[in-house]
């Protein structure tokens, strides 16, 4: 009798479950299974978390285990380097009378129990729209900073509220000798959920981020603010919290508001996410070369178009729809057609042609974002 093989996505979920906590049970997988998922974990940035989970087990001494350990060591050093650079960049902004809010990256990495568990590859800074041009000019003067500074004009579609109000609610976090402005707990959780969904929950690390943000929230956490005013956003956030609870075992205390616990997670969501995790992150649409690169290579078009097919989660989110919709395929088709139309509309104009990239959906999310370097949705 043939025993069904557990999917890579399921194994990843099993290994990463509660890995961000100070204590966790022994991992329930064997050496062969770890070897299968190690490349996926490393590829998606979850290698250090996986190492932490296996470090006290026999799996730590396997070849895959040692690779994960190396990833952890690298991330620890990289975090130290980034922290130093973040301080420099924030000081430069303050020197120019600019006060940015640091989002994603370090702002969530600091909530993990150890430095290096949550790697990040660039510095995402949000400034008020009035300050944006000045900030762009400032970044150009920081050319010797060997890091990607991803500058956002306001918060784009990641956060719903008024920019000034978000700034008012923001908090200060200590990094070395510098205070860094970060989002409030509520806005942070909201942003992490929306960002994760817009990328189709492509990386397990992003779901761990939500788990960490959820479990480290303060006692006076304002759920009403977090869920926002729009029904679709509240539904998305509730679904992500249900997802992180069911896949990664986060927030066991069930101390969640009724409108979250009463939200039904559609049956297709978990299989979609686990299937996504089984695919190397490098194959994710956001990491594909820009479409224009295929113009002179018609034989590659089919692959280029196939690689850009959104998963149902991305389809729903791109249409501001609810997860409870019975036919998510409609939104996938709609999303695909819309992006194709946007791209086609730009084709006659060469200036646009060379600016439209495969990251169109990311650009929409980061409206006004001035990426210093290649953007891959960190």
């Amino acid at each position, binding site marked *: 009798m043939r025993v069904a093989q557990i999917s890579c996505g399921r194994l990843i979920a099993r290994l990463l479950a509660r890995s961000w906590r100070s204590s966790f049970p022994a991992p329930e997988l064997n050496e062969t299974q770890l070897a299968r998922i190690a490349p996926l974990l490393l590829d998606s940035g979850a290698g250090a978390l996986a190492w932490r989970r296996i470090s006290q087990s026999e799996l730590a001494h396997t070849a895959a285990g040692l690779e994960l350990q190396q990833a952890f060591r690298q991330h620890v050093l990289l975090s130290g380097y980034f922290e130093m650079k973040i301080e420099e960049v924030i000081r430069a902004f303050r020197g120019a009378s600019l006060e940015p809010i640091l989002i994603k990256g370090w702002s969530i990495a600091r909530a993990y129990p150890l430095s290096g568990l949550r*790697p990040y590859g660039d510095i995402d800074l949000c400034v008020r729209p009035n300050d944006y041009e000045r900030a762009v000019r400032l970044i150009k003067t920081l050319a010797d900073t060997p890091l*990607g500074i991803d500058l956002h004009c306001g918060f784009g579609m990641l956060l719903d509220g008024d920019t000034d109000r978000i700034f008012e609610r923001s908090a200060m976090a200590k990094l070395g000798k510098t205070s860094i402005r970060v989002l409030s707990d509520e806005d942070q959780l909201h942003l992490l959920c929306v960002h994760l969904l817009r990328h189709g929950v492509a990386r397990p690390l992003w779901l761990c981020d939500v788990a960490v943000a959820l479990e480290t929230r303060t006692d006076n956490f304002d759920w009403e603010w977090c869920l926002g005013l729009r029904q679709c956003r509240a539904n998305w956030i509730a679904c992500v919290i249900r997802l992180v609870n069911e896949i990664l075992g986060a927030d066991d205390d069930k101390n969640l508001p009724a409108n979250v616990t009463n939200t039904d997670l559609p049956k297709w969501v978990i299989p979609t996410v686990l299937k996504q995790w089984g695919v190397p992150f*490098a*194959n994710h649409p956001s990491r594909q*070369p820009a479409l224009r690169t295929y113009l002179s290579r018609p034989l590659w078009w089919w692959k280029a178009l196939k690689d850009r097919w959104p998963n149902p989660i991305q389809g729903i989110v791109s249409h501001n729809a609810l997860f409870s919709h019975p036919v998510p395929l409609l939104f996938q088709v709609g999303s695909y057609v819309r992006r194709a139309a946007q791209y086609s509309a730009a084709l006659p104009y060469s200036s646009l042609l060379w600016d439209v990239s495969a990251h169109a959906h990311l650009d929409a999310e980061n409206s006004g974002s001035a990426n210093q370097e*290649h953007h891959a949705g960190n």
Partner: protein
Amino acid sequence: MKRSKSRHLPKARTSGILTREIPGELLIYDMKRHAAYCLNETAASIWKQCNGKRTIIELVRRLEKSCKVPVDERIVWLALNQLEKRHLLDPRFSFPSQRVMSRRGLMSSLGLATAVALPIVVSIIAPTAVQAATCGGKIPVAQCNNVSRVGCCCTINLTCTQTLPGVFTCILPAC
């Protein structure tokens, strides 16, 4: 005379060095050479004590105190040998001629009869933003060698692409 003596007092290099401690290890990132190292507890303990003023004997005593076991002087020389080769000591430090011996030579003369763990300094792949999640900057062509690099910009303004299963090339002019 004094200057000559100080050349044999090892001093840990501190400029352009980033360190982080994790359980049982000290991680060092040499930002000038873009190289990263992992020191075990013995090597880390010796490296941290090298302040340019302590003699080898003093380093031995300090190691004995921290390990609570007798330490052979050659253990310290072995550590210094590895640290010096990896540019983790002040370049003004030089080995006394009678102490220039290969790591293998030191290892064989020490044998396994040591109560303290042998000092180990190993290279780890220098961290890059690529490994952290994104392509960050451009990657050298040689690093376009696995799926995690697909989509990254190569230094020659091409994109790292998987052309065949297991074959990765900087090919598409995307960057």
